[in-house]
């Protein structure tokens, strides 16, 4: 019947409005739920979430060794041409030539933090760091070389 539906409509409408008001009322009275970070003030204690992606870094261990073979899988995976790998040929003690990276060039200004390079890397040599204060005064500073000077590939990584 029309009138029954009309009254039902009104009551279900009021009920749904009250549900919404209950939720906001809960937040209004529970200030512990506030998730705002007062950023520059709490810079020392700021904890970034694990899944936050700030920039690509090449992992170096304590012997200044990394796991990058220079396979360019990340370069191919990158949709923005953010990564450019310059390779060279090392001479191993046995006298054989071996491919290795010369420069791992990373353009932070082009990167969208899409994580595809990390997924593509067969040796887990790169990861996403949680840094986010990237502003610099010159755009050239955003083009970074990720392998540290004098670093070399870790033994046993092919």
């Amino acid at each position: 019947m029309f009138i029954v539906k009309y009254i039902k409509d009104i009551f279900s409408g009021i009920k749904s409005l009250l549900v919404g008001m209950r939720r906001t009322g809960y937040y209004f009275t529970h200030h512990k739920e506030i998730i705002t970070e007062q950023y520059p003030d709490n810079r020392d204690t700021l904890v970034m979430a694990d899944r936050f992606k700030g920039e690509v870094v090449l992992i170096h261990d304590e012997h200044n060794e990394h796991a990058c073979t220079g396979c360019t899988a990340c370069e191919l995976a990158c949709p923005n041409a953010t990564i450019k790998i310059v390779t060279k040929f090392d001479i191993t003690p046995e006298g054989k030539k071996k491919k290795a990276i010369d420069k791992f060039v990373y353009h932070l200004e082009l990167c969208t933090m899409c994580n595809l390079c990390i997924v593509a890397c067969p040796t887990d040599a790169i990861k996403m760091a949680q840094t986010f204060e990237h502003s610099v005064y010159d755009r050239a500073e955003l083009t970074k070389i990720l392998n540290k000077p004098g670093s070399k590939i870790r033994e046993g990584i092919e």
Partner: protein
Amino acid sequence: MFNPTWAMTIEMVIAGVSVIGLFAALGLVLVLMERRVAAWMQIRLGPNRVGPKGMLQSLADTVKLLVKEGMTPDGSDKFLFNLAPYIAMMVAMLLMAPIAFAKDFRLWDMNIGVLYITAISSIMVISILMAGWASNNKYSLMGAMRSGAQIVSYELSAGLSILTIVVLTGSLNITDIINAQADGWWIFKGHIPVLISFVIFIIAVTAETNRAPFDLAEAESELTAGFHTEYSGMKFALFFLAEYINVFIVCAIGATLFLGGWMPFHIGNWEAFNHVMDYIPSSIWFFGKTFFLIFVIMWFRWTFPRLRIDQLLNLEWKYLLPISMFNLLLVTAIAILKWHF
């Protein structure tokens, strides 16, 4: 020296100064309150930079608006464009006249207080229409049209819900209405029909003051800023202030009609209890109730999604108006049969 003319002039000056002072104070407090309530409801902190706990934020905003250039766009009707914000402000000032702020404390105790308020608040729409037309801007015009349709239609159900209290009291005088609530506020004495008309009143005045979820006149997401798109500086500030003052006024009226105005919380004949309640000053009762209603309206704003224009008019003409008419009949029956307490 002290002939009636001078006495009247001095009286006018005092009244004017205190009303303007109240406006300034209310503007500062309400804007800060709105921002704080909004922040807490959205799990944020809100203003916390200027002054202790951000208390001086709205003062800083006021200073900013004061020193900003007030621009008048080319091709606008300059006279009306500059007049509109002052009309909005004047209407808000006129509405202050019959409100009883405390026991025996009001500007003008007139016989027709409630009717006066309904009458004057119908001028409010003129300033919005004027601003919208004079800006010579499509967004402004559309905002003005919408707000005209909105205010004109919601005035009906607001008026009908005010009428329920007038029927119960048998008087349009605000003092009489408050005195009739000496043994309990109408919202408790009048059973469910008064509760219904209270809810309708709150909904209708939210719409009349153009606040979200009925903010179609401003409609930030579609009409940039609706009728005050072209306004800047002090003229914008006047509109902004008038909006908050109007919220205060309608909440004060709601508190007066349904929650007893300055009347302390009394229960029937419990003399001892009523006597204890009388120790709290009447102005605190009045402002407490008013700010509670303001909080409720802010709660609406930060909870509900906006309505579309057809939904808005449907709500009024298909739900609020028939319900409040039927409700008025019920209340009249209650008043005649003396079923209320």
